[in-house]
């Protein structure tokens, strides 16, 4: 039996703006902006170099309806390179670049096969083997229908690969993105399920592989780690998946152990060492530093200055770092401060707050978060964020009380 080899990627989000980059210096925007293109270029370069039999791209090539023309141009150029290398491309559009969007599509070269708004089958021959690919493009932003039901069941010995941009049924917020169940996928008896939409790389099933390759380039602090695509080799009996890194900038949380730190200089040096080691490993990065193992002396040191000041000072140190290194935030993971006589005042306040439910919070913050002008710029607070706020409240209350001692 012949093996077939293809690359599986999704969620390119070309030319997407990075989120949560507060205070990021404008003069370095270019580096951020280029990163999605760079990741894409890395992908194309890999393809041209290793010549897979074909490529599947499962939705969300562009970030949004207001996709930039430049993104299209870059994509077109990439596709042309693949055409030159005689690599066929099978792609479907996802919720971010659905078919209903009112824009001019750049003409793609003939090696690119685009799935239309309904589930359809496309075939190609690879060294005498037939490969059938199934998929659809989002006809509009939301696809509530379980599109999986429309995929045919594989019935012959050919290779069958499903392209599906969507999320597993059950997550309320993602129900509008062609929900499916693992069982439904398995029921189609395909050799490979090429999924897209979820940006976190994951395997829902090893055999046959049901795979989210994750996006090519992380775009915010919750898309951490090195991003890339899969180089897949399939036979009728086995599969071999290799993750190929492609991202140009890595988002990550980096822990820094502060045990024994006494002076600011020591701390700065420590952070630099850790971060140098980190960037050497992953290249350009946007990091959240997590100060751990804070002992009493280190704590005393950190108390000397506001957390914001520490952050700014450290950012200054990495201002001209190459490759790009942006310190998004510093978290100080402190043990509960001992010997704090303010508990008696603090506790009742915190207890009062712990009784608040989701709605209480929303009502409380409605002035800003439900304000007609500002609500469009603020996303609804998640439970996690509420917890963060509570921690912040406790922190600031402690500070305020200790100041009044």
């Amino acid at each position: 039996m012949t093996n077939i080899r293809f690359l599986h990627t999704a969620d390119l989000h070309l030319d997407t703006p990075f989120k949560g980059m507060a205070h990021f210096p404008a003069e370095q925007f270019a580096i951020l902006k280029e990163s999605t293109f760079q990741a894409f270029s890395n992908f194309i370069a890999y393809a041209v170099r290793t010549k897979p039999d074909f490529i599947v791209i499962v939705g969300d090539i562009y970030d949004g309806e207001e996709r930039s023309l430049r993104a299209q141009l870059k994509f077109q150029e990439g596709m042309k390179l693949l055409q030159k290398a005689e690599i066929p491309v099978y792609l479907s559009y996802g919720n971010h670049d659905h078919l209903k969007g009112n824009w001019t599509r750049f003409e793609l070269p003939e090696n690119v096969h685009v799935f239309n708004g309904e589930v359809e089958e496309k075939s190609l021959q690879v060294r005498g083997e037939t490969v059938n690919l199934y998929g659809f493009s989002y006809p509009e932003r939301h696809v509530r229908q379980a599109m999986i039901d429309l995929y045919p069941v594989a019935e012959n010995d050919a290779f069958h690969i499903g392209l599906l941009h969507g999320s597993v049924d059950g997550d309320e917020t993602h129900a509008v993105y062609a929900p499916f169940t693992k069982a439904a996928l398995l029921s189609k008896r395909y050799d490979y399920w090429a999924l897209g939409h979820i940006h976190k790389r994951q395997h829902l099933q090893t055999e046959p592989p049901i795979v989210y390759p994750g996006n090519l380039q992380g775009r915010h602090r919750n898309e951490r780690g090195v991003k890339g695509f899969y180089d897949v080799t399939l036979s009728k009996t086995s599969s071999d998946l290799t993750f190929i890194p492609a991202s140009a900038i890595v988002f990550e949380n980096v822990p820094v152990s502060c045990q024994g730190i006494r002076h600011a200089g020591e701390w700065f040096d420590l952070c630099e060492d850790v971060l140098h080691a980190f960037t050497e490993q992953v290249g350009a990065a946007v990091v959240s530093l997590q100060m751990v193992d804070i002992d009493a002396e280190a704590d005393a040191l950190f108390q000397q200055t506001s957390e914001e000041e520490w952050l700014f000072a450290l950012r200054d140190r990495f201002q001209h770092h190459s490759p790009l290194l942006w310190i998004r935030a510093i978290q100080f993971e402190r043990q509960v401060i001992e010997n704090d006589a303010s508990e008696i005042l603090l506790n009742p306040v915190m207890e009062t707050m712990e009784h608040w439910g989701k709605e209480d919070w929303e009502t409380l913050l409605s002035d800003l978060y439900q304000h007609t002008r500002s609500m469009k710029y603020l996303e609804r607070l998640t439970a996690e964020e509420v917890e963060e706020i509570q921690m912040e409240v406790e922190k600031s209350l402690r500070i305020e009380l200790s100041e009044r001692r």
Partner: protein
Amino acid sequence: MKIEKLVIYGFGKHEDVTVELGSSINILYGHNEAGKTTIQQFILHILFGFPPRNSQFLRYEPKSGSKYGGQVHLRDPLYGKCMIERVRGKSAGDVKVYFENGEQGDEKALKRLLRQYDRASFEAIFSFSLLQLQDFEKMDEQQFSRTLLASGTTGVDHLLQIESKMEKEMERLFKKNGRNPMLNQKLNELNTLEQELQEHRKKLDHYAPAIRRLKEIDESLLTIRTEMKRLTDEVRQLTTARQLYPLYVEKETVTKRLQSIGSQQFPADGIGRYETIRHKLTEAEAIVFSLQDEMKRLEQILEEQVEEEKLIGLNQLIAKESDWHRKLSTMTALETEQASLLERQAQLGSRLGMQTPEEMEILIRADASIRKEEEMYERLESLKAYDQELVLIEREQKRLQEALQRISEKAQYVTRPSDEAIAQAKNWPSIQKQMAEAKAYHAIQAQQQQQTKRIGMIFIGLALLLIGYSLINQQYGLLFIASLIPAVALFYLKSRMNDSNAQEMDEILATYQGREQEMTDLVIRVESYEHERKKLKEEKSQLELDMHRLQETYDGLLVDIQQTEQLLQTFLTHYGIDGLPSATIIPELFRMIREIQEVTRQLTDVKKKRAQFASEIGQRMLEAEAILKQDIPREDLYDWIRKEQQRHLQVMERQKAQKMRRSELANELQEKQTYRQFLREQIQTLFQEANVDGEEAYYAAYQIQQEKIALMEQQRTIDLQLAVHGEFEIDMSETDVTLENSIQNLKEVIEEKGQDETVLVEEKAKLENQTTALITDETYSQLQQQFEVEKAQFTELAKVWATKKALAAAIAQMMDELKEKKLPNVLAEASSIFEKLTDGRYASLLITTEGTFEAVSTFGMHFPIIELSQATKEQAYLSLRLALAGSMIETAPFPIIMDDPFVHFDETRLSHIIEVLEQSTAHQFIYFTCHEDMQYRFKRAKTINVSEIGKIRSDK
């Protein structure tokens, strides 16, 4: 929580002391300085740590140097039996907690055990003293009320402060309708940015239509270009046709013309030859004509007459040229002389004061001969002599007068002698007479001698004068005469000196002189007097006589002078001069008169000479004019004459040359005429060859010949040109004009198409630029990223705001709960205690809407705290504290420490409070007092005499 036992290692004055406490009320009694406060502080120190060394609290370190610290044994509802031991160590001391189950703990465990209470919080609720109450007294109503409230919820103030701080900070961050708070500003920025994004996005919308239009343009361009190519081909065809058309027409014409010309003869190089001959002929004829002309001119010149007589006359005139010039110059000299003489005449005339010509005429005519001059000098001399004489006389007169004067003076000095003397003297008349005579004669002689001397002097002077004159004028004859004069004079004088009379007189005198001596005195006296008188008289009359004579001479002289002057006057009048000028200038006047007369005479001479020369010159002019037949200015006369002579000489020369020339010309003319004839014959031969009879016809024949040659050449060229285009159909019905119109029409169409093309191409370029710009423009994604960054910052700030909001809200909510739930409960409890304490006098305690406390009497009267009596105030306070402590029994079951707070209570109320305390068994009370009897008031209290604590130890 109840304290069971205190073990003091060393604390203040207490050392090594153990105090056992009861589970409910403990009364620690002692006199002042017994150490009550020390025990109280011991409990607090062990539980909450030793105060820092520099704090306001005493550390109670034992003076004896024994071990610092101790133990507190207690039983806790949660943790069971525990022992807390604190000893000297770090500032707060080293603490250990021993639990019932054998576990040990440090500060952290102690905190837990103490429910996280610090000392301040603990004291605020569970420890009170009279001191605190006394403090309250000083406070005003509001403060009092606040303290009451705060005392039960320690740190509430802090929380309230934090709340309001949060509120303020929130306002700085965000206001619903604000503009300046940070979030509002950010919001505006975001809005602006979003609008900018929208605008950019709209620009992107142009892309699709632009691309569509580009496609359309490409199609249109293709159509237009095809059409243009077709039209251009057609134009090219027509243009060729139009180019060839005239060639065909021309060819036809040429052929026809050639036919009509037929055969035509013309001598080879006929025109060249003809024109050469013709040219030569013209030249020859011109020479003949010019020769003839020349001849004619020569004849004319030769006809001119030569005036030989005139020439002779002229030559004669020239011979006399020098004479002419001399005369002219003499004339000029005379004129000059005349002028100078006239000037001299006028000058002299004016000097002589001649004012009129008549006066002048008299002057000129006057006799100025030598004789007249002599006459003048004579007169002048005599006048001068008279004057000299006059001077001499005057001098003599003066001398005489002086002499007269002297005599009269002398007369005065002569004194008259006595009469006797006179008589005596008369005796001597004769002698005296003789003597007198002799003396008189003597006197005269002396006088004469004087005169002689004077004359001698005159002679000498005269001689000297003459010598000087002769020496100057070198007249030696005169010199001789002059030298004789002194000799003559000397002789004359000598003769006068040898007078015989004188000798005689002298002899008489000498004879009689001896005899007179006797009568000397008298005679001399009288005689001298007489003599003197007489002599003086005589002298005087003599002198007067002389004077008279002199006067006469003088008068005579004056007359002479007058006459002489009269004569001079008359003399001058002849010359027209009035008045008598001074004698010295008269000779000058005479000289000038004579000069003027001389000048006048010279003038007359000059005039005469001039007249003579003028007539001679006039004569010459007339001669010259006769010859030249012309009026001539006198000055240029000889220039003219010489010119005229020159001219005549030239004419003669010329005529001689012309005659020679004439014969030469005659020969030449003959020659040229023959040549001319030869040329004429040659032309005739050419005409015959061309079969024509004149020049015009000859040229016409030549033209035809030339045309024929050209036409043949043209025919050849056309054939060649046509050959290039090969076979070409020409519709000879078309004309150039119709062809041109067709081409023009087509070109217009092409141009229109071209314009359309240009418009489209421009539009295309523009659109291509636009689309390229849109594709490559990174502004949009830049803006998107910026928007995200701003949004992230906004979100961050929003979270900060949310934190503050949540904190403020939590505090507010807690406070509300405190006020609305806890406080009413506490108040109710406090009211009931207060009612008990006051024996029903007051029903309750409440908080007014303003936040102040009030006590309400059983009759419903409201009293602000401040209006209560001291004791009642304390009771109200106690009620609140007890109620508060009671309300916290669950969360903080601490003992209540009291420091003699009941001293102001009366018997009734004291018993009431004791009742209350004894009823509230939940709390342990540790009551310090210095009032001995207090220990007997309680029924179920454990009493400890603090004064005895030490004693117990010392007893050991």
